[in-house]
C-alpha cells in the first residue's frame, strides 16, 4: 500500500501545541508511508485539493489525515479521497485536536502523542479494504412523536410535501403546552388563535393519521425501515362513534376531578373533552376518578351517550406501523417548585407556577380570564414574579437556563397591568435573558411603558401574613433588603425533560444528556439529527427553547425527512459484520447475542450450517465479533486485525 499522511495545523488550534512538521516527518518513517506533509487547514478547499493532488501524483492507495475529531470531518475527507478515485474506506483519521492539542499545553508530550496517534492510524489503514455500500428501499412514511407545536409543525410540513404521517400524542388532545398559553411574547397575539388552525389542519389533512391517547411501545429496525409498535391507551370511549357532543361531560356525577388542562386550578368531570378546541374532539374517561371504576357502579355516561360510544371494558390496543423516519417532538415538563421550601414548597395556594398563571389569564381558563387568587377568588393588587425557579440553580440540579421565563414573565406582567391597571407588578430576577428578535424591546416596554418593577436579586423567603404573602428578598443593585406584601406570587418555573423521555430514548436508541434532553448529532451543524440515522428532533425535547425556535426545528426536521425521502433507496453502511464461512464453527453465539436479529442460519450443501449476516439489518455494533470464539464474524472496518494493529503500535 502507498500511504499519504496529512497533518493539519488547524490554523493555530493544533499547531500552537503540536509540532505538526515533526509529526509529518516521523510519519514518513512508518512502513508504506510514501508521502507526508503538514498544512494550515486541511479541511479547506485547497487542503482537500492538496490531498487529491497527492493521491494522483504519488499514486496513493490510502490516506491518513491527522486533524480534528473524525466525528467532525471524517465524512468531508472521505468524500475528498473518493473524488480523487480512492475508495472512501481507504482513509483513516487521527484526532490530534480534541484529543491532543486542546487538552494539554505540553508541546513535547502533545507532539509525541500526535505522532503515535498517526502511527496507529497508519497501522490500522494497512489492514483497510475498500468497502462498498449497498442500497435498501425507503418506506416513505414518517412517524411524529408528540403533538405539541413542534410536532404539529413537523407533521404539517411533511404532509404538505405529500408524505404519509402518523402523529402519536400521549394526551387526549394535541396542542401541547402552547395550547395552555394565553398570549405569546413578544407580539401578545393569542396563543390558541395561532395554534388552533394548525391543530385543525392536522385533523383535516388526509395524509396525517393521528393517534391521540397513544404512546410508542417499541421501536425496531433502522433508517428507511423502522417498525414501531404503538399502544393506544383505553379511553373507554369508542372514538369511531363519539361525536364530541359533550353530553357525557355535562351529566357525569363525578364533579370534583382536578382539571389537569387548567393546571389543577379548577375541577372537571371524570369523562370529557380536555378543552373546547381539542383535537381530536373526543371524550375520554379518567379511570382514576370515574365512579364506574372507583365504586364499581354508575354507568350514567353509558346511559346518556346518544351514540353508545361508552365501553368500560375497553383495553389498551397495540398496532404496528412501518416508517422510514421518526421525528421526536416530545416536549417538556415544568419544574416542580415544591422543592423550594423558602417559597412555601407548594403549601401556599397563592404561590403559583407560570403556567397556572397562564390559565388564570386565559379567557377559557378556570376564572374566565379574570385575574383572581386561587385561595379566595380576590383580585390581587400586588403581584410578585420570581424568575429562575428551577433554572440556573445547581442546588436543585438545574444549572441550565430555561430560556423562556424572562420573556414570559415580562408578558404576564404586561398582561396583568393591562387587566388590572391599579395593580403593582414586581419581578425578582437574576439577569434578563432576551436575545430574540424584538425581545429586549419587549422587556423594556414592560419596565418603561407598563411600569413593572424589576428588582435584581433573589427572593430569600415567602411567608403568609394577614391574608398576604410577605416576599423577602435582596435588591443587589441597591444593596438593600426588600420586602413586598404580595397578594399573588408567580414562580417562573423552569423547563425540564418530560417524564418518560429517557425510556423513549432507550427505545429509539438515541442519547440524552444528564438532564434528559435528547442529544443532537452536532450542537451546531446537525441540530435536528440524532446519532441514530433516521431519527430527528424538534422542540424542547432537545433542549429549552421558545415557540419560534420549536416551530423552526419542526420545519427543519420535516425538511430533513423530505430530503431523506426524496430518494427511493438509501445507502446502507458497509461497516457491518461479515462471516468467514470457513472459520465459522456454527456455535450460534452470534445469533444469540445480536441485538438486531441481523444474523441467521444459512445452510450450505450437505446440510452444513453457517451463520450469515443480513447487511441491511446489521447496525455494525460488533457485539457478534466480540462474542464469536473463532472470530469468524468480523466487523468490517473495525476488524480484530485492525484493532490489534493499533494496540501493537502502543504495546508490542
Amino acid at each position: 500500500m502507498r500511504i499519504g499522511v496529512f497533518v493539519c495545523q488547524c490554523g493555530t488550534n493544533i499547531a500552537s501545541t503540536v509540532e505538526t512538521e515533526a509529526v509529518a516527518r516521523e510519519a514518513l518513517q512508518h512502513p508504506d508511508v510514501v508521502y507526508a506533509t503538514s498544512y494550515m487547514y486541511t479541511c479547506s478547499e485547497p487542503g482537500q485539493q492538496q490531498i487529491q493532488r497527492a493521491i494522483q501524483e504519488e499514486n496513493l492507495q490510502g490516506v491518513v489525515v491527522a486533524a480534528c475529531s473524525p466525528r467532525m470531518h471524517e465524512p468531508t475527507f472521505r468524500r475528498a479521497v473518493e473524488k480523487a478515485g480512492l475508495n472512501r474506506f481507504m482513509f483513516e483519521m487521527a484526532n490530534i485536536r480534541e484529543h491532543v492539542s486542546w487538552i494539554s499545553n505540553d508541546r513535547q508530550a502533545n507532539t509525541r502523542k500526535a505522532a503515535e496517534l498517526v502511527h496507529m492510524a497508519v497501522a490500522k489503514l494497512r489492514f483497510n479494504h475498500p468497502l462498498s455500500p449497498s442500497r435498501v428501499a425507503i418506506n416513505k412514511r414518517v412517524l411524529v412523536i408528540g403533538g405539541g407545536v413542534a410536532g404539529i409543525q413537523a407533521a404539517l410540513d411533511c404532509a404538505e410535501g405529500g408524505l404519509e404521517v402518523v402523529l402519536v400524542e400521549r394526551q387526549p388532545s394535541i396542542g401541547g403546552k402552547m395550547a395552555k398559553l394565553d398570549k405569546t411574547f413578544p407580539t401578545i397575539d393569542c396563543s390558541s388563535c395561532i395554534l388552533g388552525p394548525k391543530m385543525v389542519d392536522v385533523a383535516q389533512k388526509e395524509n396525517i393519521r393521528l393517534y391521540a391517547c397513544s404512546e410508542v411501545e417499541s421501536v425496531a429496525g433502522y433508517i428507511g425501515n423502522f417498525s414501531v409498535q404503538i399502544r393506544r391507551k383505553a379511553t373507554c370511549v369508542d372514538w369511531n362513534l363519539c361525536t364530541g357532543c359533550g353530553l357525557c361531560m355535562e351529566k357525569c356525577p363525578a364533579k370534583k376531578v382536578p382539571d389537569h388542562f387548567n393546571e389543577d386550578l379548577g375541577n372537571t368531570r371524570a369523562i370529557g373533552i380536555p378543552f373546547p378546541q381539542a383535537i381530536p374532539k373526543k371524550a375520554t374517561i379518567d379511570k382514576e376518578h370515574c365512579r364506574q371504576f372507583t365504586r364499581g357502579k354508575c354507568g350514567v355516561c353509558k346511559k346518556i351517550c346518544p351514540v353508545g360510544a361508552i365501553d368500560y371494558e375497553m383495553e389498551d390496543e397495540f398496532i404496528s406501523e412501518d416508517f422510514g423516519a421518526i421525528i421526536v417532538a416530545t416536549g417538556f415538563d415544568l419544574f416542580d417548585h415544591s422543592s423550594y421550601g423558602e417559597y412555601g414548597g407548594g403549601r401556599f395556594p397563592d404561590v403559583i407556577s407560570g403556567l397556572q398563571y397562564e390559565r388564570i389569564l386565559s379567557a377559557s381558563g378556570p376564572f374566565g380570564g379574570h385575574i383572581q387568587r386561587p385561595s379566595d377568588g380576590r383580585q390581587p393588587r400586588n403581584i410578585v414574579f420570581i424568575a429562575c425557579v428551577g433554572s440556573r440553580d445547581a442546588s436543585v440540579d438545574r444549572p441550565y437556563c430555561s430560556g423562556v421565563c424572562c420573556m414570559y414573565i415580562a408578558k404576564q406582567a404586561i398582561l396583568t397591568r393591562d387587566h388590572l391597571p391599579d395593580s403593582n407588578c414586581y419581578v425578582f430576577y437574576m439577569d434578563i435573558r432576551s436575545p430574540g428578535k424584538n425581545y429586549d424591546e419587549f422587556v423594556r416596554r414592560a419596565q418603561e411603558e407598563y411600569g413593572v418593577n424589576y428588582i435584581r436579586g433573589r427572593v430569600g423567603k415567602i411567608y403568609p401574613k394577614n391574608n398576604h404573602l410577605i416576599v423577602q428578598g435582596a435588591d443587589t443593585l441597591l444593596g438593600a433588603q426588600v420586602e413586598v406584601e404580595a397578594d399573588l406570587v408567580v414562580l417562573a418555573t423552569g423547563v425540564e425533560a418530560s417524564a418518560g423521555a429517557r425510556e423513549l430514548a432507550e427505545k429509539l436508541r438515541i442519547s440524552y444528556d444528564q438532564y434528559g434532553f435528547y442529544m443532537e448529532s452536532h450542537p451546531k451543524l446537525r441540530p435536528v439529527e440524532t446519532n441514530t440515522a433516521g431519527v430527528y428532533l424538534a422542540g424542547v425535547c432537545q433542549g429549552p427553547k421558545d415557540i419560534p425556535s420549536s416551530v423552526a426545528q419542526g420545519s427543519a426536521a420535516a425538511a430533513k425527512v423530505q430530503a431523506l425521502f426524496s430518494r427511493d433507496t438509501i445507502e446502507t453502511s458497509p461497516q457491518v459484520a461479515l462471516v468467514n464461512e470457513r472459520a465459522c464453527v456454527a456455535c450460534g453465539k452470534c445469533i444469540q447475542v445480536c441485538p438486531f436479529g441481523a444474523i441467521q442460519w444459512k445452510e450450505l450443501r450437505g446440510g452444513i450450517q453457517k451463520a450469515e449476516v443480513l447487511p441491511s439489518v446489521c447496525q455494525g455494533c460488533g457485539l457478534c465479533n466480540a462474542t464469536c470464539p473463532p472470530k469468524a464474524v468480523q466487523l468490517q472496518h473495525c476488524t480484530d486485525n485492525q484493532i490489534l494493529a493499533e494496540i501493537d503500535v502502543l504495546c508490542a
Partner: protein
Amino acid sequence: MTQSHDNPAHKQALTIVGFLCNWCSYGGADTAGVCRFKQPTDLRIIRVPCTGRMDPLFIARSLILGADGVLVSGCHPKDCHYAVGNLYARRRLEVLKRMLPFMGIDGDRFRYTWVSASEGQRWQQVVTEFSEQIRSLGPNPGVTGKSAAAATA
C-alpha cells in the same frame, strides 16, 4: 514506551490504551477537548463502535504486552446506541477485571466506565483520575518483566 521527558510533569510517559465507543465516550472526549478541559497526555484512544465490540482479550493482550493501563469507556447502561452492547460488555469486562489479578496482573491497571457525549467534564475527571492511578502504579512489568528491565537499563 518508556521514554523519559525533560518536562518534570512527564518524568516518564506511560502507555494507556483507551477503547472508546464512537457514540458516547468518544464524543465525550471530543466534548472535553472542545471545552479545553486539560488532561494528562498518556492516553491513546482507539475508537470502536460500541463497548460490545470489546473482546476482553484486547485488554488482556494490551496488558500482557506491557501497556501500563487500559481504559474502556462507553455509553451509560441502558443508553447504548445499539441498545444492549454495553450491558453485555459490563459483564465481560468485570469478569476480566477480577481475573487479571489472579494471573498476577494488577486489576487496577484496567478500568471501564460510562461517559456520555455530553459529559466532557466527567471525561476529564475519568482521564485525570485513571492517569494518576496508573502513574502511582508505575510502569507495567508485563509478563516478561521487560519494561522493568528497560527502566533499570
